[in-house]
């Protein structure tokens, strides 16, 4: 079995130890609570924007959407306006469904060979379900964390927390998003580990974000439900960062600093990794362009000038033969 996950596991363990030793043994709260978070956010913002700019600057020479439905042709033939969009409106709907609901992934099938050599295609939903659960629970968690950076806390955040804590299990009340996030990440990891083809294609870079997100969620849960950190102190630290008057309140446990450090690493790692699919999905030319090149000419900014074999060169070479079969000629 592919052991590449070991590198990533090791890396995350080392990162946790660094934060632990740094805060617990060396008392570097300022480094882990202020300097690294600031640096990480800076790297994230600059890295993310420059990557997007780099993509956006590169030309789109040809309009090559993947068409997944009937084209617009004769008026009585029903066009598939979403999967084969002709207008910007269609593209917007296609992109929205792709980005919000992972529509292409929803179509996923699984191939198997039946008795007698018949190939069988089954609708495979688990990957889509795990992906949706993972992304939406992660988004919920991130939005919930805004309460640490905002004073007063907006009422819509309160609503979100009410929904997320709907089941009112335990005290403090359990947020579903955290549990779902942990479950989805675990599923995505096990999938990479145990499905032979997935295992074969997976790189260390595929495991690293999973481990780090798992650890972030896990430490977050520890802080909230088990070590029961003083929320007022954490908020003071966060507000300090947000208002550029950083402070380090006393008495925040080391687990919190590990949590914060891993989040910082994730931010800094983001622009240099496959996680950039967050930005790339908006720019993918096979999805974000209408299939209307036959109606509206698409311009290639670097359209090369090329040598072509002209008709007169052709006629010069074959004139006698063309004459022989009575083909019309430009020059006799």
């Amino acid at each position, binding site marked *: 079995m592919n052991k*590449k996950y070991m590198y990533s596991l090791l890396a995350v363990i080392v990162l946790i130890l660094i934060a632990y030793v740094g805060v617990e043994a060396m008392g570097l709260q300022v480094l882990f609570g202020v300097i690294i978070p600031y640096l990480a956010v800076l790297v994230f913002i600059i890295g993310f924007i420059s990557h997007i700019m780099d*993509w956006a600057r*590169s*030309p*789109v*020479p040809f309009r*090559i959407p993947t068409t*997944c*439905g*009937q*084209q617009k*042709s*004769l008026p*009585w*033939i029903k066009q598939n306006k979403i999967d084969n969009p*002709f207008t910007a409106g269609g593209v917007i709907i296609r992109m929205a469904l792709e980005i919000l609901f992972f529509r*292409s992934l929803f*179509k996923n*099938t699984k*191939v198997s060979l039946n008795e007698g*050599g*018949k*190939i069988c*295609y089954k609708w495979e939903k688990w990957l889509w379900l795990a992906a949706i659960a993972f992304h939406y629970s992660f988004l919920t968690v991130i939005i919930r964390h805004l309460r640490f950076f905002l004073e007063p806390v907006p009422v819509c955040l309160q609503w979100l927390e009410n929904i997320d804590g709907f089941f009112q299990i335990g005290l403090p009340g359990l947020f579903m998003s955290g549990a779902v996030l942990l479950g989805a990440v675990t599923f995505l990891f096990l999938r990479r580990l145990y*499905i*032979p*083809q997935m295992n074969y*294609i*997976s*790189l*260390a*870079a*595929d495991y690293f974000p999973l481990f780090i997100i798992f650890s972030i969620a896990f430490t977050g849960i520890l802080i909230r439900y088990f070590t029961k950190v003083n929320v007022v102190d954490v908020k003071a630290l966060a507000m300090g960062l947000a208002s550029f008057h950083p402070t380090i309140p006393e008495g925040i446990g080391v687990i919190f600093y590990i949590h914060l450090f891993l989040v910082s690493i994730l931010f800094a790692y983001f622009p*240099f990794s*496959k996680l950039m*699919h967050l930005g*790339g999905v908006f720019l*993918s030319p*096979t*999805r974000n362009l209408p*299939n*209307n*090149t*036959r*109606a509206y*000419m*698409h311009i*290639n900014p*670097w*359209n*090369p000038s090329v040598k*072509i*074999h*002209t*008709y007169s060169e052709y006629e010069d070479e*074959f004139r006698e*033969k*063309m004459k022989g*079969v009575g083909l*019309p000629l430009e020059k006799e």
Partner: protein
Amino acid sequence: MINSDERVSKLKHRPPKTDWMDTPTVYKKGMYCYAAKPSRLEYMDAPYPKDWSCIDEDWQLPENWKEILLNGMKERLEKFRTFKIFMDICVRCGACADKCHFFIGTGDPKNMPVLRAELLRSVYRNNFTKAGKILGRIGGARELTVDVLKEWWYYFFQCTECRRCSVFCPYGIDTAEITIIGRELLNLLGLNIDWIAAPVAFCYRTGNHMGIQPHAFVDMIDFFTDEVETVTGVRMEQTFNKKGADLLFICPSGDVFGDPGTFTCMGYMIIMHYLREVHGLDITWSTYASEGGNFGLFTSNETMKRLNAKMYAEAKRLKVKWILGAECGHMWRVINQYMVTMNGPADFLEEPSNPITGTKFENAKATKMIHLAEFLSDLIINKKLDLDPSRNDRLKVTFHDSCNPARGAGILEEPRYVIKNTCNNFYEMPRNTIREQTFCCGCGSGLNAGEDMELRMTGGMPRGNAARYVSDLHGVNTLACMCAIDRAVLPALMGYWAPKVDVCGLSELVANALIIPGEKEKTENLRGEPILRKDVDPDEWYVRPDFPGRE
């Protein structure tokens, strides 16, 4: 070659024990095409022509081959947003893995689209990303070596650029685009296959892939004119290079050249004759622009442009209204997604409308080129074709969507409408194998050679399997398609996987059903098969006679 049952029983989809970067590429006989002969490249002024074979140890690479490839990658990263984004954002979710017909048919993990892209992506990481430079192998990066180059060659010529994987990719990563660019890179070193390089050179010189010179082209059509006369009793003279004709007609030259495409070609001729006699529409052939297909698409974007330029040049010279394009797969990817961008604007042509029905083809007002299936659909719904579908009653028809019209255009309903109006027995193959999910014939993008038969039979397995399914279930005996490569290769594939199924084009079905003014009493179709039930033994009624490719 082993038979189809044995092939299925041996098929395994478990990856090997060694990591893919440590699994050497073994060139298996029957799984690759022959290397490009130097004369082809010389004719096109392409770099590094040489006499070589892909199984040679020494590929006679220039000293600075690595620099050439890496510079080529850099240039293309700057020129194609697709390439840059597709190199950066794959998360290896695996959704594409079992969507590829070559993976399904071979079980070779490097035929999973994700891994095919990783072959290139690993070098991209190594030379163009910080993370790859720092982390090396742990970061999924690897050095470009001769072995890597040979791996690229083997696997970029085991992809038919069908885009099925891109339908399922959550980011729309298109392996066709990656293969296209991979092949452009290989061409920088003169490393093409002959089955692509030869048609390209032929097409550049004579106007068509087959290298048919103008007098021979006319002779071949004349021969078909005699054949058609025998069957229908009507002499249907064609016109060539005619100035002032209403429309220029361009078909894939494969239909002029080989069975069973020739019957489709006769179909074109009959339709053109009918439109001239009944509706006064003057459609001309061209010997100069005598190719619809474009093997330049499988070579480089510049080559594609050089070959495609003839269509507009000839339409301009002949002063036609617009261009009618026949049944060809990748031809329609080029026309739909590249043509006007490369060689437009086509301001010397009219915005296309059907001179017979008055219908405006709004979807083609810039390119000014109409697909025959669109044109026929418009004629049929306006009752401009006199059709007797019962003449095709001996056929139980299914329709194979060719990759490019399906996923590079979306021409799905038009051909079905034409078939349903020309045949009484039509059955669809399973939903996961048609329309946007259609499976490749296994031979697209220039892989339709003879020496790679093993590759063709494995790659065509899902298509063959689906055809076999409807053959067993409904007694389907005819697979209709609108692609000349399909017509050339599917008979062999059907012979292997679905032996009762013959292959034909749309136009053949239309021509057989068409009631032509002055025709003799029809008793046979274009292939000489009796079409009246009383003339045939009941047990034989649905049996198609032997055809090339069926053992």
